[in-house]
């Protein structure tokens, strides 16, 4: 051990440790392994950024775990304590919440990039498959995390999960009981989602991540795809090694500096969002007896919310139960179906348009989910007054009709002057579309998506309402009339 006695003290400490753990060699091998020059690109930073965000989530999660109480009676209060009483508790909650959003987003971008660059092809099939499961676990973390924020959204969000599980044939009932840990959503439900969110899913996710990164190191970073450079099982490895060695650079520092820059930028972005926008909720207390609530899922599940609203009733159960399984099966089968061949997106139009289609569909469905045009606006009838210009120069009977319109909650589904529900058509110019008889019919019998009001309206109320509706037309346009009436009057 004579070598230990030379050099400054920190060198001696380092040598003492290294002689025992002997990690220098493997770490140097991993850091200095040659990668194709083309992979030192800003397009290759999303995987490492996902890992950075995962570490951020683990650290902030542990810090929140110091205070959070996984009890249905106390969870909400412990979040309030974090938000308002503990110094910077709100900031850690915000970091964890925004970190979650960023992680889902970055993982999705990473996946799209890997798909478009053909990185799932031979010999990286298993890396992709692991990645699919890691995506599912990331989404699982986002959902269970929303449950741990035990507020009204969490409670009724669980209710939706339970209802979906209840639609599974044969084992649905048992599945519902398993999911809730009992007959209803209560303390037993929260503790099992706590175990999932804190132990089961992150533990598995970390193990999968380690294997995923290990395989990236062993199989090499996917080279930049060039049109015409075809992947063949027989020759690929040799070609890759040539790229990596003849025209390669060591991963450190050749490529890693971009990863480091991007990870720092992402962490900073999370912190800035956390500082500016603050933590997510918790919203109202999770008391199921408070039914004046409008439950809404978190951002990355809004598209599902939209889909569930727009599916026809008879398609819903088959869709909910079959489509996710088919989608996951397609993702898992992808490297086996398209494991060789063209990697470049210039030669894979179907792949490119699939990604574009999914991106457009996701953003449109999410956008609809932000303002839920399919939901009645529960307070519109009592909070949104009839615009004054719809009441000017009207007879008392017509004004009484406006009263009926408000009182019978018509505004919850029908907008007037741009205010009110969007479930049904706006009524601003309804008289130009429907004649008096058609208005009576529509009000009394419903139809389309409208309930029948025949039993909720007295004849006098109905007359007043229809008289008012008949006045709803622009000055420059006459109300619709039944041509046969004039003929009959002659």
């Amino acid at each position, binding site marked *: 051990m004579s070598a230990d006695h030379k050099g400054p003290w920190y060198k001696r400490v380092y040598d003492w440790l290294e002689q025992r753990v002997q990690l220098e060699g493997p770490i140097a091998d991993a850091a200095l392994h040659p990668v194709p020059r083309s992979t030192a690109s800003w397009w290759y930073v999303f995987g490492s950024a996902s890992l950075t965000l995962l570490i951020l989530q683990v650290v902030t999660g542990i810090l929140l775990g110091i205070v959070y109480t996984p009890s249905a009676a106390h969870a909400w209060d412990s979040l309030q304590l974090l938000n308002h009483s503990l110094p910077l508790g709100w900031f850690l909650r915000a970091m964890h919440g925004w970190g979650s959003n960023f992680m889902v987003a970055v993982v999705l971008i990473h996946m799209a990039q890997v798909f478009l660059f053909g990185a799932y092809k031979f010999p990286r099939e298993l890396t992709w498959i692991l990645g699919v499961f890691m995506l599912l676990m990331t989404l699982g973390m986002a959902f269970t995390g929303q449950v741990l924020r035990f507020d009204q959204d969490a409670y009724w969000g669980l209710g939706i999960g339970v209802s979906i599980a209840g639609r599974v044939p044969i084992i649905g009932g048992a599945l519902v009981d398993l999911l809730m840990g009992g007959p209803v959503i209560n303390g037993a439900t929260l503790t099992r989602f706590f175990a999932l969110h804190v132990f089961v899913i992150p533990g598995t996710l970390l193990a999968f991540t380690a294997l995923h990164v290990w395989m990236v190191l062993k199989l*090499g970073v996917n080279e930049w795809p060039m049109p015409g450079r075809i992947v063949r099982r027989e020759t690929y490895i040799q070609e890759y*090694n040539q790229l990596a060695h003849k025209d390669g650079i060591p991963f450190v520092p050749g490529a890693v500096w971009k990863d480091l820059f991007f990870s720092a930028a992402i962490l900073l972005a999370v912190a800035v969002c956390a500082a500016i926008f603050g933590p997510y909720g918790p919203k109202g207390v999770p008391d199921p007896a408070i039914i004046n609530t409008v439950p809404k899922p978190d951002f990355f599940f809004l598209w599902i919310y939209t889909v569930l609203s727009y599916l026809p009733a008879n398609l819903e159960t088959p869709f909910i139960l079959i489509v996710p399984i088919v989608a996951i099966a397609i993702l898992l089968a992808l490297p086996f179906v398209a494991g060789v061949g063209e990697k470049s997106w210039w030669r894979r139009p179907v792949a490119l348009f699939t990604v574009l289609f999914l991106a457009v569909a996701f953003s449109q469905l999410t956008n609809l989910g932000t303002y839920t045009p399919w939901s*009645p606006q529960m307070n519109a009838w009592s909070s949104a007054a009839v615009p004054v210009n719809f009441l000017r120069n009207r007879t008392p009977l017509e004004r009484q009709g406006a009263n009926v319109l408000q009182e019978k909650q018509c505004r919850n589904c029908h907008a007037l002057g741009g205010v009110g529900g969007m479930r049904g058509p706006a009524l601003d110019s309804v008289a130009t579309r429907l004649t008096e008889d058609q208005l009576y019919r529509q009000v009394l*019998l419903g139809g389309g998506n409208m309930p029948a009001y025949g039993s909720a309206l007295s004849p006098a109320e109905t007359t007043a309402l229809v008289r008012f509706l008949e006045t709803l037309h622009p000055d420059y346009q006459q109300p619709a009339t039944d041509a046969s009436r004039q003929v009959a009057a002659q």
Partner: protein
Amino acid sequence: MDEKLPPPNPPEPSPPERELHSRRTFLMNVGIALNAAVAAAIATPVVVYLIGPVLRRKEYRAWIDLGNACDFPAGETKLITFKNPFTDPWDGATANIPAYVRCSEPGKFTVFAINCAHLGCPVRWFAESQLFMCPCHGGVYYADGSRASGPPERGLFTYEIKVENGKLMIKAGQVPTLSNRAANTPCPSATEPISPGLVSRIAPCPPTTKDPGTNASTIG
């Protein structure tokens, strides 16, 4: 590691033939078998523990007293809250379950679950328009619980009821879903028998009247 992809496995020195059948190898195999047996023995209680909530399902439902039947005036639908019969001290407010009691005529009660038959959100009663509306996906029901519009496949779930010694009782304790008892209770104002099998899962409540919402049963 960077020479070949996938990396070559270092050639392992194959053990001499006699090593494969030695006493040590035999004992190692016995050790593996022992561990497998113990693991199986330990796994059984773990599985039973995990599916405990399913095994206990018979305990979940009980008759619950909702108060005097005469407290529910005829022609009204009232929001009530009852304590779930199967509860733990740490459930807090989640032990409370809301429901709607509808008394269509004296002595005739229907108790609706709060959960929309679509995906379980809490429906709200609007006495003026005699409708239940759901805030989530826009399901709407008539006063008698039958589906009026929106995505629900069926009418509102109802509880089993009885009136005993002047008290209105319901059998409750379980979130109503399409896969438990709640799904089998007759749909509000259903006169036709429920169709069996897959069809009943998708459309268990055939439209009963020609013009729903216009007959007496849908009036609150």
